[in-house]
C-alpha cells in the first residue's frame, strides 16, 4: 500500500514541476498587469492634480503665454496611436511564427515611438515657458515628461525584445516579454489619449 502511494506521489511531483515551468510565463504576465494597474494610479493622481489646478488656479497661464499649439502634437498623437495597431500586427506575425514579419513591424513600432519622442522634443524646444513657470508650466512638463519617460522605456524594451528575437529558437513558444511590452505600449497609448484631451483639447 505504501509503495502505491509512493509511486503516486512521485508522479505528481513530476507533473507539478512541469506545470511550474509552464505557469512561470503566465505569472510574469499577470504580475506585469498588476504592476501596470498600479502605475496607472500615478497617472491618475497627476491627472486629478491637473484638473484641480486648472479649475481652481487664479493665474493659470503664465504671463505672455496664449496657449498651446495643437497641430504638431495632433500629428504626433496620430503616429503614436497608430503604432498600437502596428505592434499588434507584429504580434500576430510572431503568433504565426513569421519572425521576419514580426521584426519588420516591431521595428516600425519603434520608429513611430521614436518619431513621437522627437516630435515632443521639438515641441519642448519651441515653447516660451519653462517647468518653473507657475502651475501651467509645472503640470505641462510634469505630465508630458512623465509620459515621455514611459514612451522612452517602451522603445528601449522593444529594442531588447527585438535583440532577443535573434537568439535561435528563443521565440518558438511565443514570448511573454513581447506580450508584456506590447501591453505596456497600449497602456502608454491610452494614457497619451487622456493626456492629449486634458492638455491640448481642453484649453
Amino acid at each position, binding site marked *: 500500500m*505504501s*509503495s502505491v*502511494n*509512493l509511486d*503516486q*506521489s*512521485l508522479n*505528481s*511531483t513530476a507533473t*507539478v514541476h512541469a506545470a*511550474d515551468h509552464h*505557469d512561470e510565463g*503566465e*505569472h*510574469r504576465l*499577470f*504580475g506585469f498587469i*498588476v*504592476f501596470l*494597474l*498600479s*502605475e*496607472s*494610479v*500615478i497617472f*491618475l*493622481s*497627476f491627472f486629478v*492634480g491637473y484638473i*484641480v*489646478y486648472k479649475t*481652481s*488656479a*487664479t*493665474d493659470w497661464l503664465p504671463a505672455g503665454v496664449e496657449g498651446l499649439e495643437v497641430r504638431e502634437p495632433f500629428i504626433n498623437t496620430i503616429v503614436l496611436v497608430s503604432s498600437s495597431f502596428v505592434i499588434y500586427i507584429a504580434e500576430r506575425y510572431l503568433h504565426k511564427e513569421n519572425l521576419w514579419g514580426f521584426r519588420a513591424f516591431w521595428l516600425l513600432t519603434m520608429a513611430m515611438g521614436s518619431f513621437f519622442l522627437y516630435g515632443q522634443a521639438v515641441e519642448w524646444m519651441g515653447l516660451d515657458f519653462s*517647468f*518653473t513657470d*507657475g*502651475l501651467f*508650466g*509645472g*503640470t505641462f512638463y*510634469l505630465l508630458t515628461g*512623465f509620459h515621455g519617460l514611459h514612451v522612452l522605456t517602451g522603445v528601449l524594451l522593444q529594442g531588447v525584445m527585438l535583440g532577443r528575437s535573434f537568439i535561435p529558437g528563443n521565440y518558438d513558444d511565443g514570448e511573454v516579454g513581447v506580450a508584456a511590452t506590447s501591453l505596456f505600449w497600449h497602456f502608454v497609448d491610452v494614457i497619451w489619449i487622456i493626456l492629449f484631451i486634458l492638455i491640448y483639447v481642453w484649453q
Partner: protein
Amino acid sequence: MTEISIEALSPNREQPVPGEPENWPRFFSFSTDHKVIGIQYIVVAFVFFLIGGFLAMIIRGELITPEADLVDRTVYNALFTMHGTIMLFMWTFPVLNGLANYLVPLQIGARDMAFPRLNAVAFWMVPVFGVILMASFLVPGGPSQSGWWAYPPVSLQNPTGNLINGQFLWILAVALSGISSIMGAVNIVTTIIRMRAPGMTFFKMPVFCWAVMAAQTIQLFGLPALTAGAVMLLFDLSVGTSFFDPATGGDPVLYQHFFWFYSHPAVYVIILPVFGVFSELFPVYARKPLFGYKFVAVSSFVITGLSAIVWVHHMFASGTPGWMRMLFMASTMLISVPTGVKIFAWVATIWGGKIKLGTPMLFALGGLVNFLFAGITGIMLAAVPFDIHVNNTYFVVGHFHYVIYGAAVMGIYAAIYHWFPKMTGRMYYEGLGKLHFVLTFVGVNLNFLPMHPAGLMGMPRRVASYDPEFAYWNVLASLGGFLLGVSTLPFLLNMISSWILGEKAPANPWRAIGLEWLVSSPPPHENFAVIPTVVSEPYGYGKNEPLIASPMASTELTSELS
C-alpha cells in the same frame, strides 16, 4: 521501498536539512529563498525599530519636564520626524512584509514566491533607503523637521539652501520605500492569486493570506498617489516648481489629499496582516475553529474598499467644506463595521475554548484589548465636532499609538513567538516571553493612556515644551516609554539565545492546523517536495477531518527520495 515509507512515517525523525540555521552567512547574501528573505526583512526591520524606539525615548526624556531642556527645539523636530518615518517605513512595513514573505508561500502550499529575484531586490532596497534616511543626520541642517507628513510649505523651507538637505533625503528614502513596496505588493498578490496549492480555493485559504492580499492591494492602488505627491514635492523643493507652494500660486491642501489618500490606508496595510495573525492564533490557542471564517476573510476586503474613501478625516481642520466633512465622517465610521465583525468573531472563537495562555496567545489577547480601545477612540475622532476639538493634540497621538504599538506591534510580537519554532527550528523560553509580555502590556498602557487626558486638556503634539499643568500625565507617559525600551531587552535575549541554544522544535509544537505545520521546522528548501492537495477549510480544530488529501504522501516521505 516499503521500508523507506515506514521509516518516513515514524514521527519526530531527525531530518538533516542542508544549510539550516547554522549556515548563518546566507542571511547576508542575495538569497532568493522566500524564507531567508522573510527573516532578513524581520531582523533588519527590528534593528530600525530599536533605532526609532531610541529616538522616542529621547523625545520622552525631553517631555518629562515642561521646559525644553534636554535637546534643542530643531533637534526635537528632527527627532519626532525621524521617529515617525522610521517606525512606519522602516519597521512596520518591512516587518510585516517579512512575515508575509515567510508565511504566505508556506500557507498556500507554494515552493516560493512568484518572482524570487524581484523579492530579493525589494528586500535589499530596505537597508539602502534606511541608510539614506539615517544619512540625513549628517548633512548640514540635520534631518527633515516637517513631521512624517512633510506638509508644505513647512517641508519646502530648506533653511540651509543646499540641494542635498534633510528633506531631500527624506523624500528620496520614502520614494525608494514606495518602489520597494510596489515590487513586494506585485509579488505577493501574484503569488496568492496564482500559486495556491490544488484544492485551495479562496475560501479554503488561511485568513492571514486573505488579510495580506487585502493589505497589499492597498499598497498597489494607494501608494502611487503618495508617489505622485512626493515627486511633485521633490520638484518644488529642488527645482523650484510651484505645485504646493502657496507663495507662487501652489495648493498645499492638494498635497494633503495626495498624502492622506495613501497614508490613511497605510494604517490598514499595517493592521490588516495583524488581524490575520490574530485570526490564525486564536483558533490554535483556544482549540476551536475560527468563528465566521468567511466573514472574517471577506471583511478584510471590505476594509480595503472603504479605506479608499476615508482619507479626508485627517483634514477636517484643513479648510474642508462642511458637506465633505459629513461624508467622510460617515464613511470613517463605517470602517467600524468590518472591524467589529472581526472583533466579535475573535471573541466568539475564544469563548468557551480550551485556552492555553502561552506567550503568543498573551500577546494576541493584549493586542486585541488595545485594539478595541484604539477603535473606540477612533470612532470618537471620526466625529467632526470632537475631532476639531482635539485636532493636533496628544489625544490623536495616544489614539494612533494604541493602534500601532498596542495592536500592531503586539500582534507582530505574537506572530514572531508563534512562528519562531517554525522559522528557526528552536523553541523560545516561555518565562522570558511572559516577562516580555508583561513589560510590553504595562508599558503600552502607561505610555499611551495618559496621552488621552493630556490631549483632552489641550496639550498640542510636536512641541518640546508645554504648560506645567500637563506635567503629571507626561511624567507617567515618559515612565511608560522607558519601560517599553526596557521591554525589548528580554525579547532580544530570548530570541538570540533561543536561536543558538534553544530546545529543538518539532514540526508542529502547537498542534496547529495549517500547511506550514506539515513541513519540518525549519522547512526544507522549496518547502514541499510534493505540493499538497487541500480538501477542507482551515481551522478544523475539534473536527475530525484531514486538511490535505492522502496524508500518506507526506512531504517527508518524498523529500527523502527526490
